[in-house]
């Protein structure tokens, strides 16, 4: 079987990322003009969801790696 090498080529990855960034900008722009009916007040802020997703993701990475893992990691044979 021929090996797919798509992601080994940096320019392919770059193109994908560029497309992704354009999509993100579109999401922000459309959000500004989209009529909303917020049930919870924060929902009405521009791009609240995007900001929350970004902050939540970074929080999870930082807290799990630098707090949880530091405190609770043990060697793989800890229970043996």
């Amino acid at each position, binding site marked *: 079987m021929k090996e797919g090498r798509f992601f080994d080529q940096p320019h392919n990855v770059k193109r994908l990322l560029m497309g992704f960034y354009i999509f993100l900008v579109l999401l922000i722009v459309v959000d500004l003009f989209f009529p909303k009916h917020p*049930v919870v*007040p924060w929902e009405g802020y521009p791009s609240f969801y*995007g*900001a*929350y997703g970004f902050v*939540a993701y970074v929080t999870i990475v930082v807290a799990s*790696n630098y707090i*949880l893992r530091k405190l609770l990691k043990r060697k793989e044979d800890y229970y043996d």
Partner: protein
Amino acid sequence: MINGLPPAAILILGAFLVPFLKGRLKSAYLLLLPAIAFITVVSIPEGIHWTVGFLNYDLVFGRVDRLSRIFGYMFTIISFIGTLYALHLENEDGQHVAAFLAAGGALGATFAGDLVSLFVSLELMTIASTYLIWARGTEASYTAGMRYLLVHLFGGLCLLVGIIIHVHQTGSIEFGVIGLNGFASYLILIGFGINCAFPLLHAWLPDAYPEATITGTVFLGALTTKAAVYALARAFPGTEVLIWIGAAMTVFPIFYAAVENDLRRVLSYSIVNQVGFMVAGIGIGTTLAVNGAVAHAFNNILFKALLFMSMGAVMHQTGKSNATDLGGLYKTMPLTTLFCIIGAVSISGFPFFNGFVSKSMILAAATHEGMGMLWLVLLFASAGVLHHAGIKIPYHAFFAHDSGIRTKEPPVNMILAMGLAAFLCIFIGLVPGPLYNILPHPVDYQPYTGAHVLDQFQLLSFAVLAFCLLILAGLHPVEIRVILLDVDWFYRKGAKVFYRLAKFLFKDPSPEAASPQLSGEGKGIPGGAKVNP
């Protein structure tokens, strides 16, 4: 009264014929059993069926209403998919039988109209599930299975005592709404809660599921917790404490899953997180919330099975499941990669996939009830799902750094099983109507509004952006070969202390006392069982 057998009996009795069949006949029979059970679930009319006198009570093996029927669909569909996935195991009759018994237990609990047959069904599921863990044949699976059994026997005991007191107080064994109203109800809630992996009662799940057989885990991940969700929806809808238990369940596992190295253990923590959404929905208790919880149970069974199957396929082909050992497999397992990605975007709740159309009902129910804090917590947990199940699983197995492993796609039955689950994830995402039509309450909810699709794309896409930026900046932490302590530390270490103390106090001369198998110090598996993949 109607003719034929209850769905549970079809699987339980049918299982015993499996060892006597061979070749294609056996394969056909294995697939036929869950298919017949499914058709039975479709065709039984609503009402009370299969009533059997027992002492002074009536046991009801077929209480059929909208709530029990949809769980019946779930358990029979996943039995079919799981059996298809395991079809290449020609000489593993024990696993096929145990899988059918476990699914039969789940179906028995679902259609039980009384607490006695509910209890017996749940215990059957526990015992059959333990076999699916032990069948792996490793020392780790033996000790994990033993801990699984002990924890669930404890849970079963709480449930049994709760049931006895409840029956004594009310004079009825009917399994209906119980509600939190005294000692018996607390014991019953704890019994269900252990099966449901409530916080602090959850450690058995990430401990045992990754040690089970590749095909067994598909059944385990679908049955035990979802049967418990059904029991909660039946007995404790609108119980406020469940809201916060559920919320806690959605949050704490995402931190564990984020740094866990074994990808099947990541998926196990992910089960706790997903069941948390359902428990919170049942706690809110409105028709929208309960509908959301049940719909999410249905969808979760599909995408979680799909993810477990794709990781199982990787393990079947490479013998590995640790993130640190894998990577770059998209080159040689493109189909498995595609199926895994479909499972990953479904569980993350991307629009047009099934997770989106059910999880959003629970979040909407939270806002409709004015629970802004709960909504923020569940939204945070949604970003967490994207992190560990949406990105981490496919990224570390199939992309990331190239591990140099060159393999091929798994057997065709595994591909077909994954394909079927993937198809259902997409179909329900695109056309949620048929799922909404079978929910317990009439549905007045539209998932595909412009604002909702936009908001969800924002939440998930900017979380993906965070991932990309951290990777590009070299700031994203790498996986390392460690284990993480969880609540099971208390009984795993506690058991060792207990044995040493007992040995010291009673001066037991036998060597076993010095090396208890419970705490992982066992010298091997009884009978010298062979090791299964």
